[in-house]
């Protein structure tokens, strides 16, 4: 097969990339200074000594808001290809989009009735 030889540069690059990682790992291990201790093992945060636990409770409402944002954001994206092809799609495309928006608004209405937007 003549096609196989074309990929040899790719193989060389693969070997080089892997070899470089391995080489750097070995060299840093050999020439780097070795320090252990409590301070060394502490998690680094902007040079300031860290306080407390990172696992704080925060309101689950943020989660719902974020999910709803993603949902509606994705649906809005479908408007863009439609808008750029607006003329070609004509009346059929317009009616299809109206149906799409109707379903979209039904979902919105459902969320309102389920009190998903009530913060308190």
């Amino acid at each position: 097969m003549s096609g196989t030889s074309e990929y040899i540069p790719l193989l060389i690059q693969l070997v080089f990339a892997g070899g470089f990682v391995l080489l750097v790992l070995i060299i840093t291990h050999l020439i780097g200074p070795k320090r252990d201790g409590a301070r060394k093992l502490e998690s680094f945060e902007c040079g300031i000594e860290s306080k407390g636990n990172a696992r704080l409770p925060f309101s689950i409402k943020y989660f719902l808001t974020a999910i709803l944002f993603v949902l509606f954001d994705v649906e809005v994206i479908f408007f863009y290809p439609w808008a750029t092809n607006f003329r070609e799609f004509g009346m059929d495309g317009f009616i299809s989009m109206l149906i799409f928006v109707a379903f979209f608004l039904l979902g919105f209405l459902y969320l309102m009735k389920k009190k998903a937007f009530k913060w308190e």
Partner: protein
Amino acid sequence: MSTLVLLSLLGFLVLFLGAFDQKKLLLPVAILGLVAAFFTNALDWGTNHLWYGMMLYDNYAISFVGLMIVTLILILLIASYQFRNEDSHIADIYALMIFVLVGALVMTSYSSLVMLFVGIEILSIALYILAGSRRTNLASNEASLKYFLMGAFASGFLLFGITLMYGVTGSFDLAVISDYANGTDNLPIIFTTGVILILIGFAFKIGAVPFHFWTPDVYQGAPTIITAFMATVVKTAGIAAFYRLFDTCFSGIDGVWYNILWAIAAATILLGNISAVMQNEAKRMLAWSSVAHAGYLLLPVLALNELSSSSIFYYTAAYSVASVTAFGVLIAISQFNNDLQIDQYKGLAKNKPMMTLALVVSMFSLAGIPPLAGFFGKYFVFVTAMESNLNIAVMVAIAGSLIGVYYYFRPVIYAFNNEGQPMERIATSWTFNFVLALGVFLTLLLGIFPDLLSNLPGN
């Protein structure tokens, strides 16, 4: 197509009835809508309309959709009984079940691989939510997560297979793929890889060995009525979609997939039945038994002759009715005890004779005892397989059925043991009694007059 639109709008209507607190109207509206959908579906009989080159609404699709609508009606009636004392989220559960049916409809009538994938996703995404619908229960959450991860993985396999098909043939259309598969002498390796990947995706979805690992845990963790739904409607849709694709496209190239599917079917029958024997929990036993039934249903797909579609249809009909009845009895008995052991059926015959009758008929039908519907289901499947010289596979299946008799009889034997706890406290409702009576009636009717359905779907 009118059925598809009607079912989608019905789903939204039920959803909004719930959001506007019209709890009393939920069940009547859902049932009436499904009955209307059954009739619009039946009106399309014989039209064979190809919609936009995407969906071929032929008699095959109409038969299976009709069966699934009837099954869903029975399941909704039992669901109203199971959720009678809870007032949250019932509308959402009903609506999601109807949306699953929409996906199932697309899966049985696709004529393009895109619609197959869209149908499977409509079905699966609603099911992931349904499996986790008992939100405060840890097992239900586990079932939902497991099902989601495994299901997403399986969808990935299926999609990869579809992509390879498209890469080779340049089309998603089943007719084009079929022409390519039957008209090419040396199929490229990526085409055969695509066939195998699609096969794996389907095996995941119907829970066939060795892709069955999610089945027992998900079936056990999900609320019992959802388990009944998954074991009947979803399995029917999965096997109908499986057969439609292999019958339309890959019947001429069985050298590619025949041995693999043979091994999958035999392993599914044996492992499903042997594992069901070892279960002590009633729900888990029924979960493993549904794995075994998926194995029997693979035999007509393997045989792929002119009898296959009607034997698949008859088998799924008999199996759905018997399963809904069996799960109904399980729901009634387990209302005070979530993890019901099989020996806790004790005392049922003394206290609830009618419920015992339903249990006996459904279990005997699942085991395949004549003259019940399950017997003729198995008979038709075996005859179909023999027709294509699958003698060894049929012998494996008969051995599996013999093992099945043991574990299907265990609950029945315990039910006639009078030493058990009193079951007077078990409350029933008229919808529940109606479904049980109808289940017994249909199982006997289909067993005595198998001709009623055995000619469907016809061509």
